[in-house]
């Protein structure tokens, strides 16, 4: 009997197969079929972006954020990278019997704070309590509506060979902070999640020379670039030495045998931009607090093997695969 496993939810190949083989197969329509971060809906003369996301993080509170902040940032960022100004959010919570009131309050206040930062409002909500152990503490779903920016024109078909790939900052911090916050790992280092709303950063750089954006969450930069390569049809080449990463994250990855390119981010975006405007967009990005460590990490190639290539630190080359499941620490 076929069963759903954790690997189906970790953003890699299994999840792609599930999306295509089950969800698209049954629910397909011109909006969903695009598999974008948000659906773009024409409404009169304007365009609206609409998206949803669910959050099941453990632990609920971690350095740099909590499930509340995460649930707002996730939806805000999906709208932002679709070239929209996030406006209205819904928020549904499923909480288990016996959940601490003060934790719920802490999560709600965190939601309030990040909504203020992002300039969005929660305009609809739902709250359910289920029997103890039916959920792990609290699960949150948010959905959001945004208005597509006039200067925005982001879509996969605009990606062309020669385009540059920009990452807005250091990678892997969210996954690293969650790993450290789980009590089974006894590292003394403290790494904060990068969890942050990206709409301010997007507004500061948006222009027609930005051809596509996506936030590399689950599955990390490697998986996001593979998705972009698959849907655009072009190869992508990136340079390991150009990828910004904090020393603490890099060290943790070395110890555990993890590849930071596959680790989740919650406050970073990848932008595919035209070659000639790359330097200009990068300098605008660097002026924003959330983009100060941004860098150009590679480019779109003309070959159409739909592969992502990595030039390694030491000068070698390898193919960067889409992730196929959870990363697990290696024995040897």
């Amino acid at each position, binding site marked *: 009997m076929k*069963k759903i*496993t*954790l*690997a189906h939810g970790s953003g890699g*190949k*299994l999840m792609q197969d599930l999306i295509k083989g089950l969800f698209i197969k049954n629910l397909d329509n011109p909006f969903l079929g695009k598999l974008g971060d948000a659906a773009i809906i024409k409404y009169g003369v304007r365009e609206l972006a609409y998206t949803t996301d669910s959050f099941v993080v453990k632990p609920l509170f971690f350095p740099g954020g909590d499930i509340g902040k995460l649930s707002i940032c996730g939806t805000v960022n999906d709208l932002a990278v679709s070239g929209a100004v996030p406006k209205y959010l819904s928020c549904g919570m499923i909480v288990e019997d016996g959940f601490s009131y003060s934790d719920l309050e802490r999560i709600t206040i965190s939601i309030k704070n990040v909504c203020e930062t992002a300039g969005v409002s929660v305009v609809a909500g739902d709250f359910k309590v289920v029997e103890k152990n039916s959920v792990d503490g609290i699960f949150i779903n948010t959905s959001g509506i945004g208005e597509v920016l006039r200067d925005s024109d982001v879509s996969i078909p605009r990606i062309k060979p020669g385009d540059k790939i920009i990452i807005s900052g250091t990678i892997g911090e969210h996954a690293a902070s969650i790993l450290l916050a789980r009590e*089974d*790992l*006894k590292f003394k280092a403290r790494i904060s999640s990068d969890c942050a709303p990206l709409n301010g950063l997007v507004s500061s750089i948006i222009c027609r020379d930005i051809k596509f954006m996506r936030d590399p969450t689950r599955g990390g930069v490697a998986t996001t670039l593979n998705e972009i390569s698959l849907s655009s049809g072009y190869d992508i080449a990136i340079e390991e*030495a150009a990828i910004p990463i904090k*020393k603490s994250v*890099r*060290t943790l990855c*070395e110890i*555990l*045998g993890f*590849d930071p390119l596959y680790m989740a981010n919650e406050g970073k975006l990848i932008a595919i931009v035209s070659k000639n405007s790359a330097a200009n967009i990068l300098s605008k990005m660097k002026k924003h607090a959330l983009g100060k460590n941004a860098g150009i990490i590679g480019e779109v190639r003309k070959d159409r093997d739909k592969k992502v290539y*990595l*030039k*390694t*630190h*030491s*000068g*070698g*080359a*390898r*193919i960067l*695969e889409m992730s*196929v*499941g*959870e990363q*697990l*620490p*290696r*024995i*040897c």
Partner: protein
Amino acid sequence: MKYMDEFRNPEVADKISSLIRKEAEGLGSVKFMEVCGTHTMAVERFGIRSGLPGNISLISGPGCPVCVTPKDYIDKAIALAGLKDIIIVSFGDMLKVPGTSSSLLKEKAKGRVKIVYSPLDALELAEKNKDKKIVFLGIGFETTAPAVAAAIKCAKNKKLKNFFVYSGHKVMPPAMRLLAKDRLINIRGFLCPAHVSAIIGFKPYADISRKYGIACVISGFEPLDILQSILMLLRQVISGKAKVENQYMRVVKPSGNSKAQRLIYEVFSPKDSDWRGLGIIAKSGLALSKKYADFDIENNINMPEVKTSIDKRCICGSVLKGIKTPLECALFSKKCTPLNPQGACMVSSEGTCSAYYRYKR
């Protein structure tokens, strides 16, 4: 970053690569085997092969402990996880390997399997869950065996009654000797494992180079370590004098770590062991010794009967030895894929079959 960036310097890497290319010119084809799984991983990760000349091939040996663990062991571990009062505790990468009808990752979803980063964490779980039997899956070579041995000793000192080990531990030299003896494979040099050597020292490799004329270089894990070691192997091949050399001097000492060696052989004793892809190799495994039999799960409960089905068409043994390519296997890319691996070479993402699946189909 100390000990990382220095050993990844692209200019130096380029220099060594050009020396390798120059010295290998006109040499005919030369096959080296990197024995250790972490070497395989590093070779892949740093794109080492892309800098080597066409006549030098690196084949991946049996040094990934997870890959060489037989399916039967995994089936038994899964069956144990299904028993009342048992919690299976394991290193992370063991969980991905499928058994006959399930995998430990699927069992983890039911809460019967926990991942730890150190065997001592398993001990702590035992102390916290006195009503449960904590069974640690002892997997790995001479590198992990001392840590597991230390945990077992510690459990004895603490008089823990609910901590057990299911030992699938293996030792490296017997497998290397088996591969060295096999003329069909024709390995000219071993990139000897780094951490295993840190424990066992040089001695076990001496007869491999002497008896079989195979170059042995103990190599570190960074790109410059590996490239330098390949150059050292190459120079041995050119000179025609096989010997044991140590590239990883900053860690490996000639006599190894005698304290760890003593610990291994106090807690474990050698036994014949089944290697996925290679079969049973005499004295290549470690079972708990009599003195510590109380901590051996196989000695303390009736081990569940399992029906392990192995597809006889799997040619992993030959692929592992570099005699056949995955394309010659009837299962390859049909019944055997990275998501549903049948043999050792598909289990590890760096295994030969897995690499072929991704790049050469």
